[in-house]
C-alpha cells in the first residue's frame, strides 16, 4: 500500500536524523541526563504535528530554550566540563529543536544537514563498529532523505499557483499534494534503496583510491584510547580485580600456521614490570628509557633482528593509554610498519624502559598493527647479567612480617637452584591458595601478610606479589609483571582475542645464566575458558567484524595502498603473461600494451565523439550545408525571410505554389518571392545556372524583404 508523500518524507528525515544522533550517542561523550533525554525527545518529536508546529509562541519558546542551553553549556565548559561533551550535547539539542519545528521543506533540509554534520563530527568521536553501522545506515537512507527532500522543496516551490484554461489562476494547497499517495510508490522506495549498492561501491572504491599522503598539519585526531589500569607507573593491589570481567578487546593476535590453532592461547603477553614494592603498591624506581635499536625501516631489535626461522605473529592493538607494546616471552624483534607523512614513510620509534617495558611513539589514535618475531626457547639468546645496583633493586622489600621469610625458607629448604626454588613457591601458591575476585578491604586487610597467612584467597596481583615477596626474602631477584594471559580463539576470524578481562599479573625471576623467566603462581581456575553460548558466538562475530573494520578501514594507509597496487600489478602481469603466449608462441612484450593503448584510444575517441556530436551538429547548422548550390542557399534565405514575415511555406506546398499563393493574397514583397522562386526552380531543376551578378541582385532583393519583414519577432518595423 502506498504511503502519503508527507509520511514517507517524514520517516526518511527521522531515519537520517536518528542515525546522526546515534553516532553522537555511541560516542559516549554526553552526560547521563542527555543520554537519557535525547532518545526520549527524539521519539516524542515525532508527534509534534498540526497547529502546534506553527504556533509563534512555541517558536519563541524554542528560540529562548536554544539561547538558554547555549549559555548553560558555555558556563559548564568554563566550570570544567569537557568542551567535547558540551558541544555534543548542544549539537544533539539543535537536532531535537529542528525535529520539533519541522514546518517546511527548509526545516527538513536543515534536519538532513545537521544529521550529516553529526556524522562528520563523529569521525573524531567514535571509531568502533557502531560508526560502521551508522555509516551503512546513512548510505541506505541518504538517497531516500535527499530525494524526498528535493521533491518536497519542488512541490512547495512549484505548486502554489495552478493555471487552468478558461479560468484564472487558482491557489493549490500544498498539503493536498503532500498527502497524495500517488507520488511515491514502492517502486521508488526500492529503486532509491537499491541506489545504496552503487553508492557503497563507489564510496568503497574512492576510499581505497584516495592517496593517503599524510600531509596533514592538524594530525592527532583519532579514536579515544582505552585506558589500561594495570600499565601506569604505579599500581595498587586490587586493580586487576575490578577489570576482570571487562570484555573489551584490547588486542587480537594472528598465529602463523606452524604454531597450530589451539582453542585457547596460553601465552603470557608482557606489558610492563615493577621493581619497587612498598607494601601496598608496585612502582618503578628508574623511569629512564632508551630507543630500541632498529634497521631504520621496520624492524626493532629486542635481542637480535628476526631470522627466517622465527615465528611471526601479527598483532592488532587497539588504541590504549599508555601506548605499551605487548610481547610474549622469547620475543627477539618487532616489526612495525612506518607511518606516512607527506607521502613518505616515516619510521616509528619504540622506547625501551627500565624493566623491559616497550612503548611506541606517535600513537595517533588508530591503534597499531605490528609483528612479533618469536624464537623457540632453545634459541633464546644469552641473557645480560644483572649488575650490583640492579640486583639490589630487584631484591627490595618493605618491612614485612618475619613469617614471610620463614615461609619462603621452609618451602625452599633442600632445593638447589633459583629456578627450582621459584617453581616450588609458585606451585605452593597455586595449590594451597584460592582465586577470588572478592576484594579485601583496605589497610591491614589488604596486606600481603593477611593474604599469605590468614585469608589465603585473592586475585592474581596478590599471588604475584606474594611470590615476589617470598622470593626476594630469600635473595632471588624478582619483578612483578603486568600483562595479559589467555586469548580466546574467534570462531569466525581465526584469530585470538585478548580482552581487558584477560589482564593478568605474574612474576619474572632472574636466574643466573638463563635470564628472566616467567612464573605464574595464580591458580588456573582464574583462567577458565568461556562456555561458548549464543552470546559468545554473537560476540565473536561482532569482534571479527570489528577487526575487519579496524584492518581495512581505520588502519588503511599508504602501505596498504602500495600493497594493493602491487597485487593489481601482479594480476596484470599474470594476465599479460597468459595473453603473451598464443599457441605456444611468445608474443612480443609491446603487443598487449599496444592493444590496451589502442582500446583506450578508441574508448576516448568514442566518448569525445559522443560528447561533441551535438556541438558539431550545431556548428554545421550555423554554417549551413557545405557546397550548397547558390540557388538553394538563396531560397533558404528567402524562406527564412518569409517565415519571419509570417508567411512560412508549409511542407506540403511547393515553392512555386507558395509564391503563387502569396501573389494571390497580394502579400507585400510577393514580387521578390516570385522572382527568387523562379530563379531557384530554374537553377535547381532546370539547366539555368545563376551568374554572379544575378546572385548579387537576388541577395539584395532578399535583404530588402528581410528588412521590410523585420528581424525580431515584431514584423512592423521597416
Amino acid at each position, binding site marked *: 500500500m502506498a504511503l502519503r508523500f508527507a509520511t514517507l518524507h517524514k520517516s526518511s528525515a527521522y531515519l537520517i536524523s536518528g542515525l546522526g544522533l546515534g553516532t553522537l550517542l555511541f560516542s559516549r561523550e554526553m552526560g547521563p541526563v542527555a543520554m537519557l533525554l535525547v532518545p526520549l525527545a527524539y521519539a516524542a518529536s515525532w508527534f509534534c504535528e498540526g497547529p502546534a508546529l506553527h504556533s509563534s509562541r512555541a517558536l519563541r519558546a524554542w528560540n529562548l530554550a536554544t539561547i538558554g542551553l547555549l549559555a548553560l553549556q558555555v558556563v559548564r565548559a568554563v566550570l570544567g566540563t569537557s568542551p567535547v561533551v558540551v558541544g555534543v550535547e548542544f549539537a544533539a539539542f539543535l537536532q531535537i529543536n529542528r525535529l520539533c519545528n519541522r514546518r517546511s521543506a527548509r526545516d527538513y533540509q536543515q534536519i538532513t544537514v545537521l544529521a550529516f554534520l553529526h556524522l562528520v563530527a563523529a569521525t573524531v568521536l567514535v571509531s568502533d563498529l557502531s560508526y560502521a553501522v551508522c555509516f551503512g545506515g546513512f548510505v541506505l537512507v541518504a538517497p531516500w532523505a*535527499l530525494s524526498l527532500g528535493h521533491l518536497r522543496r519542488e512541490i512547495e516551490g512549484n505548486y502554489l499557483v495552478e493555471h487552468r484554461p478558461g479560468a484564472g489562476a487558482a491557489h493549490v494547497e500544498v498539503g493536498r499534494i503532500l498527502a497524495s499517495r500517488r507520488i511515491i510508490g514502492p517502486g521508488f522506495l526500492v529503486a532509491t534503496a537499491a541506489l545504496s549498492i552503487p*553508492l557503497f561501491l563507489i564510496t568503497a572504491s574512492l576510499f581505497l583510491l584516495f592517496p593517503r599522503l599524510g600531509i596533514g598539519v592538524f*594530525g592527532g585526531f583519532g579514536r579515544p584510547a582505552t585506558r589500561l589500569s594495570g600499565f601506569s607507573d604505579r599500581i595498587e593491589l586490587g586493580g586487576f580485580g575490578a577489570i576482570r570481567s571487562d570484555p573489551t578487546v584490547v588486542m587480537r593476535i594472528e598465529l602463523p600456521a606452524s604454531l597450530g590453532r589451539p582453542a585457547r592461547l596460553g601465552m603470557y603477553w608482557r606489558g610492563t614490570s615493577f621493581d619497587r614494592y612498598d607494601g601496598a603498591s608496585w612502582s618503578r624506581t628508574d623511569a629512564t628509557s632508551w630507543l630500541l635499536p632498529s634497521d631504520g625501516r621496520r624492524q626493532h631489535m629486542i635481542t637480535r633482528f628476526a631470522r627466517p626461522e622465527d615465528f611471526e605473529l601479527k598483532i592488532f592493538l587497539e588504541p590504549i593509554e599508555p601506548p605499551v607494546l605487548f610481547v610474549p616471552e622469547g620475543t627477539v624483534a618487532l616489526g612495525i610498519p612506518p607511518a606516512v607523512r607527506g607521502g613518505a614513510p616515516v619510521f616509528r620509534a619504540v622506547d625501551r624502559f627500565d624493566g623491559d617495558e616497550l612503548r611506541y611513539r606517535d600513537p595517533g589514535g588508530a591503534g597499531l598493527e605490528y609483528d612479533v618475531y618469536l624464537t623457540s626457547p632453545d634459541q633464546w639468546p644469552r641473557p645480560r647479567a644483572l649488575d650490583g645496583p640492579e640486583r639490589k633493586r630487584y631484591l627490595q622489600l618493605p618491612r614485612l612480617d618475619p613469617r614471610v621469610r620463614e615461609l619462603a625458607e621452609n618451602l625452599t629448604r633442600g632445593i638447589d637452584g633459583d629456578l627450582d626454588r621459584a617453581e616450588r613457591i609458585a606451585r605452593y601458591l597455586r595449590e594451597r591458595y584460592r582465586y577470588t575476585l572478592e576484594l579485601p578491604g583496605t589497610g591491614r586487610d589488604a596486606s600481603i601478610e593477611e593474604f599469605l597467612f590468614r585469608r589465603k584467597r585473592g586475585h592474581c596481583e596478590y599471588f604475584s606479589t606474594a611470590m615476589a615477596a617470598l622470593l626476594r626474602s630469600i635473595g632471588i631477584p624478582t619483578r612483578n609483571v603486568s600483562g595479559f594471559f589467555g586469548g580466546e580463539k574467534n570462531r569466525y576470524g581465526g584469530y585470538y582475542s585478548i580482552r581487558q578481562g584477560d589482564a593478568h599479573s605474574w612474576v619474572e625471576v632472574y636466574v643466573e645464566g638463563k635470564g628472566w623467566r616467567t612464573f605464574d603462581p595464580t591458580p588456573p581456575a582464574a583462567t577458565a575458558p568461556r562456555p561458548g553460548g549464543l552470546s559468545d558466538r554473537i560476540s565473536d562475530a561482532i569482534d571479527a567484524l570489528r577487526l575487519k573494520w579496524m584492518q581495512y578501514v581505520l588502519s588503511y594507509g599508504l602501505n596498504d595502498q602500495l600493497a594493493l597496487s602491487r597485487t593489481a600489478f601482479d594480476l596484470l602481469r599474470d594476465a599479460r603473461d597468459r595473453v603473451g603466449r598464443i599457441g605456444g608462441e611468445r608474443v612480443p612484450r609491446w603487443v598487449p600494451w599496444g592493444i590496451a593503448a589502442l582500446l583506450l584510444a578508441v574508448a576516448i575517441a568514442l566518448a569525445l565523439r559522443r560528447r561533441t556530436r551535438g556541438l558539431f551538429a550545431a556548428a554545421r547548422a550555423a554554417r549551413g550545408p557545405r557546397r550548397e548550390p547558390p540557388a538553394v542557399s538563396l531560397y533558404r534565405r528567402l524562406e527564412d525571410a518569409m517565415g519571419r514575415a509570417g508567411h512560412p511555406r508549409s511542407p506540403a506546398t511547393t515553392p512555386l505554389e507558395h509564391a503563387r499563393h502569396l501573389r494571390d493574397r497580394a502579400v507585400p514583397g510577393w514580387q521578390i518571392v516570385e522572382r527568387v522562386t523562379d530563379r531557384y526552380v530554374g537553377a535547381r531543376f532546370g539547366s539555368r545556372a545563376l551568374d554572379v551578378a544575378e546572385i548579387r541582385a537576388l541577395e539584395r532583393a532578399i535583404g530588402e524583404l528581410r528588412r521590410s519583414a523585420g528581424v525580431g519577432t515584431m514584423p512592423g518595423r521597416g
Partner: protein
Amino acid sequence: MPRKLKFTREGKYFVGVTLGVGFAAINTANNLLYLVLGLQLSLIIVSGILSELTLRHLEIIRRLPTRAEAGRTFLVEISLVNRKKHSPSYSVEVEDLLAGRATEKRCYFLKVGASGSQTAAYRCTLPLRGSYRFRGFRVCTRFPFGLFEKSREVDFPDELVVLPRLVPVRPPVPGQAQSLGDDSVPRPGLGSEFYGLRAFRPGDDSRDIHWKTSARKGELLVREREADRGREVVLALDNALPPGEPGPRTDAAMEEAVSIAASLATDYTRRGMGVSIAVRGEARPAVQSERALQALLRWLALLPILPAEGAPGFPPLPRDTIGIGHRRSIGLPAVGHAFRCG
C-alpha cells in the same frame, strides 16, 4: 544535444562541505573522514547519472492557443511524454524558448510515469502584435538530490501570430456619414431598418407579424428588415510613420492605431457589416464573416509600419472612409471621421 550542468544553492554548499571534509581528511589522516568524503563524492556521481536518466527519452509538445491578442493573457499548454518503458521521470521542469530566449515561463512536472504523459500550462502575455517564433524548450531537472541542475535544449519550432490588441471603441454610427451602403438596392436581412412585408411562413417569429396590415389584407404578413451587411465600412489605416524622429511614443501611437483599426473591424463585422481596410499602397477586400475577420486581423497583426519617406499613398477611397492614424499623420486622406492616436 549537449547538457548543461550548474550548481544549485544547496549543491554549492554541498560541494563546499565536501571540499572541507577532503581537506580535513588529508590533514588528519582520519580514515573515517575519507569514508565520508567517498560517500559525498559518490552522491555527486550518482546524482549526475540519475539526472541523465531522468532527462532521457522525454518528448515535449507545445500547444499554442488558436487565437492570441497582444496584451491579453493566454495559456500555453506543454505536454511532457515519458517514452521510458519502465522508469518514471521525476521533477522535470520545461522552459519555453521564444526566439532563442527563455520566456521565464516554466512548467513543472513532479512525476511522469513510465510510458505516460502529463500536461501543464503556463500563462503568457505578449505585449505586441506580430509573429512570435518559438524555438524549442529547455528541459531541466534537479532530481534526485537537488544538488545540481542539469538541462538540455530540445528543438520544437512553432509560430504564434499575436493579433492586435482589441480595445473598446465608439464606432461612428452606420447610416450617417460613414455608411457607404447601396441604399437603392436594399436586401432583406437581420438589420434594424425596415425592408418590407411578406407572407408569413412557418418558422417566422410571431413577433414580426404586422398585425395591422395582416388584418387589412386578410392574411398574415411579417415585417422584413434590411440586412446591415449590405452596408460596407471602409477603414483607412495610415501605417506610415509620421515625419520626424521615431521614438517609443510614436511606436505606441502606431500600434494603438492598428489596435483601433482591428477593434473597429471586429465591431462592424460582428454587427453584420462588411469592412474593408485600406493601408498605404494596398487595400483589403471587404470582409463580412467571422472567418474572414480572423484573416483580416492576422493581416493586421503582420502589417509592417512603413518609414515616412517613400511610403506609397492610399488607393482611391470613398468619401465616408473612417481614417485612423497617428496624430501627426499627414497622409491620412480627407475622411468623414478620423481616429487620431498619439
